[in-house]
Protein backbone atom coordinates (compact mmCIF):
# COMPACT_ATOMS: atom_id res chain seq x y z
CA UNK A 1 0.00 0.00 0.00
CA UNK A 2 1.40 3.36 -0.97
CA UNK A 3 2.72 5.73 1.66
CA UNK A 4 1.67 9.37 1.47
CA UNK A 5 4.67 11.16 0.01
CA UNK A 6 5.56 14.81 -0.01
CA UNK A 7 7.08 16.60 -3.01
CA UNK A 8 10.47 16.22 -1.34
CA UNK A 9 9.86 12.47 -0.92
CA UNK A 10 9.53 12.75 2.89
CA UNK A 11 7.00 10.17 4.03
CA UNK A 12 5.48 9.62 7.45
CA UNK A 13 7.54 6.44 7.75
CA UNK A 14 10.72 8.32 6.85
CA UNK A 15 9.83 11.03 9.35
CA UNK A 16 9.46 8.49 12.17
CA UNK A 17 12.62 6.64 11.19
CA UNK A 18 14.64 9.86 11.11
CA UNK A 19 13.32 11.10 14.47
CA UNK A 20 13.67 7.76 16.28
CA UNK A 21 17.01 7.12 14.57
CA UNK A 22 18.55 10.46 15.56
CA UNK A 23 17.30 10.22 19.16
CA UNK A 24 18.41 6.57 19.29
CA UNK A 25 21.92 7.52 18.17
CA UNK A 26 21.97 10.15 20.92
CA UNK A 27 20.98 7.65 23.61
CA UNK A 28 23.45 5.08 22.24
CA UNK A 29 26.16 7.73 22.23
CA UNK A 30 25.47 8.50 25.88
CA UNK A 31 25.62 4.84 26.90
CA UNK A 32 28.82 4.26 24.91
CA UNK A 33 30.28 7.43 26.45
CA UNK A 34 29.51 6.12 29.94
CA UNK A 35 30.90 2.66 29.14
CA UNK A 36 34.12 4.05 27.65
CA UNK A 37 34.40 6.78 30.31
CA UNK A 38 34.12 9.56 27.73
CA UNK A 39 31.33 11.24 29.66
CA UNK A 40 31.62 14.66 28.04
CA UNK A 41 31.64 13.26 24.50
CA UNK A 42 28.71 10.97 25.32
CA UNK A 43 26.77 13.90 26.74
CA UNK A 44 27.47 16.03 23.66
CA UNK A 45 26.29 13.21 21.34
CA UNK A 46 23.18 12.71 23.49
CA UNK A 47 22.30 16.41 23.57
CA UNK A 48 22.81 16.73 19.80
CA UNK A 49 20.59 13.68 19.22
CA UNK A 50 17.89 14.94 21.57
CA UNK A 51 17.88 18.49 20.18
CA UNK A 52 18.11 17.55 16.51
CA UNK A 53 15.56 14.73 16.86
CA UNK A 54 13.24 16.94 18.89
CA UNK A 55 13.67 19.76 16.41
CA UNK A 56 12.78 17.52 13.47
CA UNK A 57 9.79 16.07 15.37
CA UNK A 58 8.55 19.58 16.11
CA UNK A 59 9.30 21.32 12.81
CA UNK A 60 8.78 18.64 10.14
CA UNK A 61 4.97 18.43 10.57
CA UNK A 62 4.81 22.24 10.20
CA UNK A 63 6.99 22.39 7.08
CA UNK A 64 5.75 19.26 5.32
CA UNK A 65 3.14 19.68 2.60
CA UNK A 66 1.43 16.42 3.60
CA UNK A 67 0.31 15.47 7.11
CA UNK A 68 2.92 13.58 9.10
CA UNK A 69 0.64 13.73 12.14
CA UNK A 70 -3.11 14.15 12.27
CA UNK A 71 -6.10 14.09 14.61
CA UNK A 72 -5.78 10.34 15.26
CA UNK A 73 -2.18 10.79 16.43
CA UNK A 74 -3.27 13.55 18.80
CA UNK A 75 -6.05 11.33 20.18
CA UNK A 76 -3.63 8.44 20.63
CA UNK A 77 -1.23 10.76 22.47
CA UNK A 78 -4.09 12.00 24.68
CA UNK A 79 -5.16 8.46 25.54
CA UNK A 80 -1.56 7.37 26.19
CA UNK A 81 -0.97 10.42 28.42
CA UNK A 82 -4.17 9.73 30.35
CA UNK A 83 -3.23 6.08 30.78
CA UNK A 84 0.30 6.96 31.92
CA UNK A 85 -0.98 9.52 34.43
CA UNK A 86 -3.64 7.09 35.65
CA UNK A 87 -1.12 4.31 36.22
CA UNK A 88 1.28 6.70 37.96
CA UNK A 89 -1.53 8.05 40.16
CA UNK A 90 -2.80 4.56 41.05
CA UNK A 91 0.69 3.36 41.94
CA UNK A 92 1.48 6.59 43.77
CA UNK A 93 -1.68 6.62 45.88
CA UNK A 94 -1.53 2.93 46.67
CA UNK A 95 2.17 2.67 47.49
CA UNK A 96 3.78 6.00 48.42
CA UNK A 97 1.78 6.77 51.61
CA UNK A 98 2.46 3.24 52.86
CA UNK A 99 6.18 3.67 52.21
CA UNK A 100 6.32 6.87 54.27
CA UNK A 101 4.34 5.28 57.13
CA UNK A 102 6.65 2.25 57.16
CA UNK A 103 9.67 4.57 56.99
CA UNK A 104 8.38 6.65 59.92
CA UNK A 105 7.70 3.45 61.90
CA UNK A 106 11.24 2.25 61.35
CA UNK A 107 10.19 -0.81 59.38
CA UNK A 108 12.08 0.31 56.31
CA UNK A 109 14.11 3.21 54.94
CA UNK A 110 13.17 5.09 51.81
CA UNK A 111 16.38 5.06 49.79
CA UNK A 112 17.64 8.02 47.81
CA UNK A 113 16.65 6.31 44.56
CA UNK A 114 13.06 5.68 45.69
CA UNK A 115 12.84 9.17 47.17
CA UNK A 116 14.07 10.62 43.88
CA UNK A 117 11.50 8.56 41.98
CA UNK A 118 8.71 9.84 44.23
CA UNK A 119 9.96 13.40 43.74
CA UNK A 120 10.03 13.01 39.94
CA UNK A 121 6.52 11.49 39.90
CA UNK A 122 5.26 14.34 42.11
CA UNK A 123 6.87 16.91 39.83
CA UNK A 124 5.30 15.20 36.82
CA UNK A 125 1.86 15.42 38.44
CA UNK A 126 2.42 19.08 39.27
CA UNK A 127 3.47 19.79 35.68
CA UNK A 128 0.44 17.86 34.39
CA UNK A 129 -1.85 19.91 36.62
CA UNK A 130 -0.32 23.19 35.44
CA UNK A 131 -0.57 22.14 31.78
CA UNK A 132 -4.17 21.00 32.28
CA UNK A 133 -4.99 24.37 33.81
CA UNK A 134 -3.39 26.21 30.88
CA UNK A 135 -5.24 24.07 28.32
CA UNK A 136 -8.56 24.53 30.17
CA UNK A 137 -8.12 28.30 30.23
CA UNK A 138 -7.35 28.42 26.51
CA UNK A 139 -10.25 26.18 25.43
Amino acid at each position, binding site marked *: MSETRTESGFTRQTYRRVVYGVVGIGILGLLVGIALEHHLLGTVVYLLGAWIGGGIAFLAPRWSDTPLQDE*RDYELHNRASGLAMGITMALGLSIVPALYVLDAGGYMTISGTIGGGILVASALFLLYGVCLGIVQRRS
Partner: protein
Amino acid sequence: MQNNLSKRRQEEGLSQGELAEAVGVTRQTINAIERDRYNPSLELAFKLAAYFDCSIEDIFDPQIE
Protein backbone atom coordinates in the same frame (compact mmCIF):
# COMPACT_ATOMS: atom_id res chain seq x y z
CA MET B 1 -19.90 3.29 14.71
CA GLN B 2 -19.79 1.48 11.39
CA ASN B 3 -19.01 2.95 7.99
CA ASN B 4 -18.83 2.06 4.33
CA LEU B 5 -15.77 4.20 3.60
CA SER B 6 -13.75 1.29 2.20
CA LYS B 7 -16.53 0.41 -0.26
CA ARG B 8 -16.96 4.01 -1.39
CA ARG B 9 -13.22 4.48 -1.79
CA GLN B 10 -12.84 1.34 -3.85
CA GLU B 11 -15.79 2.33 -6.02
CA GLU B 12 -13.93 5.54 -6.82
CA GLY B 13 -10.74 3.56 -7.57
CA LEU B 14 -8.77 5.35 -4.87
CA SER B 15 -6.01 4.03 -2.68
CA GLN B 16 -6.06 4.81 1.04
CA GLY B 17 -3.08 7.10 0.50
CA GLU B 18 -4.84 9.06 -2.23
CA LEU B 19 -7.98 9.53 -0.14
CA ALA B 20 -5.87 10.48 2.87
CA GLU B 21 -4.04 13.13 0.84
CA ALA B 22 -7.32 14.46 -0.50
CA VAL B 23 -8.81 15.03 2.96
CA GLY B 24 -5.55 16.02 4.68
CA VAL B 25 -4.89 13.10 7.02
CA THR B 26 -2.49 10.17 7.09
CA ARG B 27 -3.10 6.86 5.34
CA GLN B 28 -3.08 5.15 8.74
CA THR B 29 -6.08 7.23 9.82
CA ILE B 30 -8.10 6.22 6.75
CA ASN B 31 -7.13 2.61 7.41
CA ALA B 32 -8.21 2.88 11.07
CA ILE B 33 -11.56 4.42 10.09
CA GLU B 34 -12.23 1.70 7.52
CA ARG B 35 -11.50 -0.97 10.12
CA ASP B 36 -13.88 0.72 12.63
CA ARG B 37 -10.95 1.32 14.98
CA TYR B 38 -11.16 5.09 14.96
CA ASN B 39 -14.12 7.48 14.87
CA PRO B 40 -13.14 10.60 12.94
CA SER B 41 -13.72 14.11 14.18
CA LEU B 42 -16.76 15.97 12.92
CA GLU B 43 -14.45 18.06 10.73
CA LEU B 44 -12.95 15.00 9.05
CA ALA B 45 -16.37 13.36 8.68
CA PHE B 46 -17.59 16.49 6.87
CA LYS B 47 -14.50 16.47 4.63
CA LEU B 48 -15.09 12.83 3.70
CA ALA B 49 -18.77 13.48 3.02
CA ALA B 50 -17.89 16.50 0.87
CA TYR B 51 -15.28 14.48 -1.02
CA PHE B 52 -17.77 11.74 -1.87
CA ASP B 53 -20.53 14.33 -2.41
CA CYS B 54 -22.92 12.76 0.07
CA SER B 55 -24.08 13.29 3.64
CA ILE B 56 -22.20 12.07 6.71
CA GLU B 57 -25.00 9.59 7.42
CA ASP B 58 -24.45 8.02 4.00
CA ILE B 59 -20.95 7.02 5.10
CA PHE B 60 -21.24 6.60 8.86
CA ASP B 61 -23.88 4.64 10.77
CA PRO B 62 -23.93 5.56 14.47
CA GLN B 63 -26.03 2.45 15.26
CA ILE B 64 -28.12 4.37 17.78
CA GLU B 65 -31.00 2.23 19.01
